[in-house]
């Protein structure tokens, strides 16, 4: 076990070279609806129980199912009104269980990235060959259902092995949503490939704000607005990224969605300064324009540590 994953180098926020998003924009905004399938009777993983108490967990399972049956449509129609395209964090087995939801996303030209097969199948304990099988399955399943080649990854339920990021880079993924160390993208130190660490977010993720921090809807909208205002201010110096990761089983509850819309309206009023994009579009722009200059800046500051992830 390593003390430091060595997946990226220290890169002080102050004094970085300027990133400018397409159209001279200061902030790249993306929205990531998690479209997930939690199994009713998931198998055990030695390191994590799927549900805190017992299996099955009828209340938790059915609340996730509410997200699929009721929630996604509400959220899609809200995003439609603001011309926002989602970047779907997808448990790919949902393509088999609920293809209607996938069709609704495809119709809207949304992007898909992999969030594993099920949110109840964890990476802990997998061999690299097994993780590769998950990636093959993810790529093939989404390609078949949507025609898209996925370029992003968020490990299922945020569970990893030491190999996860090397494997996704090797499979020509462009971005990882697994790391939370920054408000700007940064190259990851994988053995091969060109993998960007993409700012996703736990702090303004509805699972954290509603389920962990116990915020009420007004407070959630308030912190989203403050978060956006601060990152936009800083984006003038060098382009920032803001993502709102969402879960329809939480945000699309009838007592929450209207209040959430206040934050969305605030953000979408800043069309002059904000690039409304998908994860892949942001990753591509960064890879094409800022990958080399970022590495050069890290090197110039004398903080490049060498090696690759989990291999100093």
């Amino acid at each position: 076990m390593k003390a430091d994953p060595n997946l990226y180098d220290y890169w002080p926020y102050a004094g970085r070279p300027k990133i400018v998003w397409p159209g001279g924009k200061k902030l790249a905004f993306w929205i990531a609806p998690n479209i997930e399938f939690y199994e009713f009777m998931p198998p055990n993983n030695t390191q994590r129980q799927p549900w805190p108490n017992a299996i099955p967990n009828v209340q938790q399972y059915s609340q996730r199912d509410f997200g699929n049956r009721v929630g996604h449509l509400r959220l899609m129609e809200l995003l439609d009104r603001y011309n926002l395209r989602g970047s779907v964090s997808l448990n790919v087995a949902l393509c088999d269980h609920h293809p209607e939801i996938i069709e609704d996303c495809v119709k809207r030209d949304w992007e898909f990235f992999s969030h594993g097969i099920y949110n109840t199948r964890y990476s802990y304990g997998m061999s690299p060959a097994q993780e590769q099988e998950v990636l093959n399955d993810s790529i093939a399943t989404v390609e078949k259902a949507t025609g898209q080649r996925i370029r992003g990854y968020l490990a299922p339920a945020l569970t990893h092995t030491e190999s996860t990021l090397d494997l996704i880079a090797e499979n020509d993924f462009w971005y990882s949503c697994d790391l939370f160390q920054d408000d700007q993208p940064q190259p990851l130190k994988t053995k091969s490939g060109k993998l960007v660490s993409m700012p996703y977010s736990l702090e303004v993720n509805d699972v954290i704000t509603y389920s962990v921090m116990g915020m009420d809807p007004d407070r959630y909208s308030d912190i989203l607005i403050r978060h956006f205002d601060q990152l936009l201010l800083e984006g003038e110096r060098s382009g920032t990224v803001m993502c709102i990761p969402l879960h329809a089983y939480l945000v699309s509850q009838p007592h929450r969605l209207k209040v959430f819309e206040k934050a969305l309206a605030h953000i979408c009023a800043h069309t002059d300064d904000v690039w409304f994009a998908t994860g892949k579009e942001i990753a591509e722009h960064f890879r094409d324009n800022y990958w080399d200059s970022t590495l050069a800046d890290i090197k110039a500051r004398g903080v490049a540590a060498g090696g690759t992830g989990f291999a100093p």
Partner: protein
Amino acid sequence: MSGLSTDYLSYPKRAYGQDHSFYDWRLSQNRPKLEWKNGVKVAICLIVPLEFFPLNPSGVPYKHPGAMVTPYPDLRHFTVRDYGNRVGVYRILEALEEAKSQATFAVNGEIARRYAPLLQKLEGHEILAHGVSTNHIHHEGLSRQEEEALIDRALNALPSPKGWMSPARGQSSRSLELLAQSGLDYCLDWEMDQVPVMAKTDKGDIMLIPNSYELSDFTLLHTRRQTEESWVKQIMSAIDMLAEEHERFGGQMLGLTLTPYIIGQPFRIWALRELLSRIGAREDVRILTAAQINQDFRE
């Protein structure tokens, strides 16, 4: 049932005063009045911990409150904490610069070793030794030699720090003596009074500068899940009360923790700016470094 051993119902230290010899028992109304310089009634010490949270914490003797949570490799919590050292701390530094305020940065030895550019940015602020890392907690199970080695390692990583804060503010019963022996003048782990208190050890004295657990951003915003509005309001209420008590009790102080991965979040940093601006508007309140507090108090 044989019950507990008879020792359990014997109380060898049951006598007037404290049950240790670091400082004497003293009620607030009996302490000599302290006066800060320039008519200041309330001194504020802003303490910014810069901590390294390894991906593989030992959990000995307990896990640091900010340590990894999920099974290895917990990239989630590793990177959430690291956000503070890469991004959040620079927001704090900017807010301090705007308010022309100096803070006291409590720096893990491992941070100094890894993040040299960050240390350079702390010029003009105070740097306090903060142990080796969050995985190096000082506790009773360490031998004297082991604890001395931890202190040496932490001190050697920094440019001659005069003060100390322990990782997770944890100490052994030997810590104060070993810190004094290492030539440290003050320590920010204890908070039994609203003014600094001098502790005595066999290896010399060391000043204990109070540090509020209840008003720390980690406790109030993270552990207790209260709002930033309320954090600012509660700190200002505390300041008001200390100022009101000035006539009766003299100068008092508050040690306030600003955790980079908590208050340095984009949606929270406004609250620090607001707090600094409200403090700045008060002539009777002054932000001092731990070194200044130590010096003022000793004078």
